[in-house]
């Protein structure tokens, strides 16, 4: 077209010096600079290395078969299911921050919700891979979907594993919808600031022609509120359904009614730990210290104390109920958990999950980014061990002593676990580089300047 240059030109409009413009500039620049900080390159190289490890180990698994893993009767659910529950748990904090804190009108969530949502989606991707690859014939997981087929068979909807399929895939879909919808106004900002044709085209397509009309904002806010209201029970349902995989079985140590709330509390705990683990380096290296403040870290650390205590309560209550039930298999399972062959894993879990968050009672600890990062990582380790303890100790010592065993993972198990972190961090670092890392429109809406004179009209 002859007059294409008439379309608002590929130069930044005159920059304002008000609070809103500063927010826009701070966050947009992260995705606009020619070169991200050196730390990003180092982290990306490491993440790509781990990702290739993941591809190699999964490729070899497909080639050689499930025998390369340590899964063996009686512990048929080894690392793959531990990793699945671990990652799906991580994925809970994002939607919790986005939806529940939104409904509770917690304004501070706006600084962290976008990358917590991104974290959720990448964690759910990691989680979704594990059940698929550990089924022995990983090209057949579509058997679990209700698809008409030549076998004239349908999936069994009374099975918790089938509920799991629907819960996890619904959760992944709704998380992506929620994440994408939140980004539409920010994509429009990126589009309007674009200085090259391709950036303008790419962000223009994903922004869908959003121009910030108040009539559009009206419907947008309604839709966002509804999504938050839908996602809130969803986030609670997903880990409850995951816990049904265990709780509806008869294995001592699994067959308990405390599992759904216990799993949900653990998921929020582990998810928040991952959020602080990611938030500290992100604010450090991308210059977001004025948006993700010490105050935010402190609030998240307080959530960690609360959920850590909930998880500790659940550990204690499991012992109490085992004793109170008078069922000798239950009693044995829990005594064996703490003092049997897996005692090392149990006490690692207790130290990481129950003891370490107590350090956050000290204000100096919970306001220190370094301590926040370290304790967050320790809790991540602890939450992984929690799933290991639940799965492996219960299966390794069930009713019949003649079928007892001891689970020993192979190097391929470790490679796949490490590789899944590579997948997660690769996606996360790409997100940091190319997408709006903080919800700009929401941060602006909660900025004092947005309300300063709103009352006197």
């Amino acid at each position, binding site marked *: *077209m002859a007059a*294409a240059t*008439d*379309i*608002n*030109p590929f130069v930044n409009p005159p920059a*304002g010096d008000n609070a*809103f*413009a500063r927010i*826009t500039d701070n966050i947009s620049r992260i995705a606009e600079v020619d070169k991200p900080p050196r730390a990003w390159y180092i982290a990306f190289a490491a993440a790509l290395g781990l990702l290739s490890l993941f591809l190699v180990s999964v490729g070899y698994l497909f080639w050689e078969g499930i025998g390369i893993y340590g899964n063996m009767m009686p512990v048929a659910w080894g690392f793959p299911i531990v990793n699945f529950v671990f990652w799906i748990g991580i994925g809970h904090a994002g939607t919790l921050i986005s939806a529940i804190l939104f409904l509770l009108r917690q304004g501070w969530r706006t600084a962290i919700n976008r990358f917590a949502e991104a974290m959720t989606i990448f964690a759910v991707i990691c989680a979704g891979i594990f059940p698929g690859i550990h089924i022995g*014939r990983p*090209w057949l997981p579509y058997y679990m979907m*209700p698809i008409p087929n030549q076998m004239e*068979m*349908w999936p069994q*909807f*009374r099975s918790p594993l089938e*509920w799991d399929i*629907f*819960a996890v895939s619904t959760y992944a*879909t709704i998380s992506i*919808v929620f994440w994408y*919808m939140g980004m539409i*106004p920010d994509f429009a*900002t990126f*589009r309007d*600031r674009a200085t090259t044709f391709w950036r303008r085209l790419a962000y*223009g397509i994903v922004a*869908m*022609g959003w*121009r*910030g*009309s*108040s*009539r*559009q*904002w*009206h*419907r*947008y*806010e*309604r*839709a966002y509120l*509804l*999504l938050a209201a*839908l*996602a809130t*029970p*969803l986030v609670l*349902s997903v880990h409850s359904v995951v816990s049904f995989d265990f709780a509806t079985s008869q294995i001592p140590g699994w067959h308990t009614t405390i599992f759904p709330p216990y799993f949900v509390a653990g998921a929020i705990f582990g998810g928040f730990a991952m959020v602080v683990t990611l938030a500290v380096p992100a604010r450090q290296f991308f210059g977001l210290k004025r948006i993700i403040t010490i105050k935010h870290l402190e609030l998240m650390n307080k959530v960690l104390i609360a959920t850590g205590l909930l998880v500790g309560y659940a550990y204690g209550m499991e012992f109490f109920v085992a004793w109170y039930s008078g069922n000798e298999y239950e009693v044995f399972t829990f005594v064996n958990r703490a003092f049997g062959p897996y005692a090392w894993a149990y006490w690692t879990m207790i130290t990481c999950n129950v003891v370490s968050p107590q350090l956050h009672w000290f204000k100096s600890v919970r306001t220190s980014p370094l301590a926040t990062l370290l304790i967050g990582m320790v809790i991540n380790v602890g939450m992984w061990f929690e799933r290991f303890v639940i799965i492996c100790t219960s299966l390794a010592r069930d009713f019949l002593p003649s079928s007892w065993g001891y689970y020993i993972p192979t190097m391929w198990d470790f490679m796949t676990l490490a590789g899944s972190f590579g997948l997660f961090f690769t996606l996360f670092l790409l997100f940091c580089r190319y997408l709006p890392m903080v919800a700009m*429109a929401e941060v*602006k*809406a909660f900025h004092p*300047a*947005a*309300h*300063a*004179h*709103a009352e006197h*009209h």
Partner: protein
Amino acid sequence: MSHDEKTPETPGPAALHGLLAEYDTPAGILAASQKIRDAGYSRWDTFTPFPVHGIDKAMGIKMTVLPWIVLGAGLSGLATAIALQWYTNTFDYKWLISGKPFFSIPANVPIMFELTVLFAGITALVAMLVLNNLPLPSHPLDFVRRFARSTDDRFFLLIEAADPKFDEESTKALLEGTHPAAVETVKEDNVTSNKLPKVLIYGVVILTVIATVPFALAAKARHATSKQTRIHAVLDMDAQPKYKAQRRNPVYADGRSTRLPDPDTVAVGDLREDSHFYRGKMNGGWARTFPPQVRLEDATMKRGQERFGIYCQPCHGVGGEGNGMVAKRAEELQQGTWVPPTNLTQDYLRQMAVGELFNTITNGIRNMPAYGPQITTEDRWAIIMYLRALQRGHASKTAGLPPATGGTN
């Protein structure tokens, strides 16, 4: 700037789209919105980088219909879940598990919940986009340079020329009375085409056609026969490192993959050395005595009577005379092929060795089937004991028996 200069074919001076005012603060746009609303304009809008609190009221925006659409979608998700689970597990493919009901609310609630949320959530996004007339690739405001800040830090108000109350002079005066940072005229967009690019249309058509090919092939394969074996992408279930029954196995000299048991191998519990007890034979002939395992006492007799009533009486009759209900019915039907059951009280059977009787029950005779697989060894001997009692009772005179047994003194 004037309307009549517009020439649709070539880009040039375009018609007026409307008037745009820019404001520095949310408060500014709120105050201006109220004025425009009160002035009675209908085709106007504001553009802000974030949802300004109170702007709905200031502009007089009516509540959107979106929540009702989402509710409808949620209910249809719920209905889909109920229909899916009922159809698959209760109607089309029943599979009984531990006697649990095929359809029950508790077991089917999780899927109902998930599909409700799934349908409602996707609809919330789609309905938001559709009601907002998105995606919208181009807009006359894209040609206004200052408008790029609408997604950054500035607040804009646009009154369209299509508004019935619009008048360039008076509307401009009205806008300038709302303390804007700037007021600007917006031209119609006669630069960008309002037709979809041909590449895009062809691309969608071609991709749609290609996407139907796998489904068409699958449909053809399901309604046609073929001599080719099925193609398996992954062959590990077809080619397994093992020998199947009836296939040649080079490991063994005889070439069999199914190995025969060693000679004289007996399965656990199948060793039946006691010929008298298990086969009714002694020293090469039929045993004339009961084996020592069978205790000749009342309990055995009662057991024999009961078993006889179950297995023998239907054909041989209550008294063993060959007149059971089955035999009577068969004679009634007169079909001509019926071999009447033997009268067990005949003299030659009364003389027959118990071992031979045992063999007859165990292996059958003529058209009497073998009862060995159905009646345990002990019970077969008990039946013979009862049969002996029947035979003896039949042959004896009633005289000399006590009255209670039907004797006449």
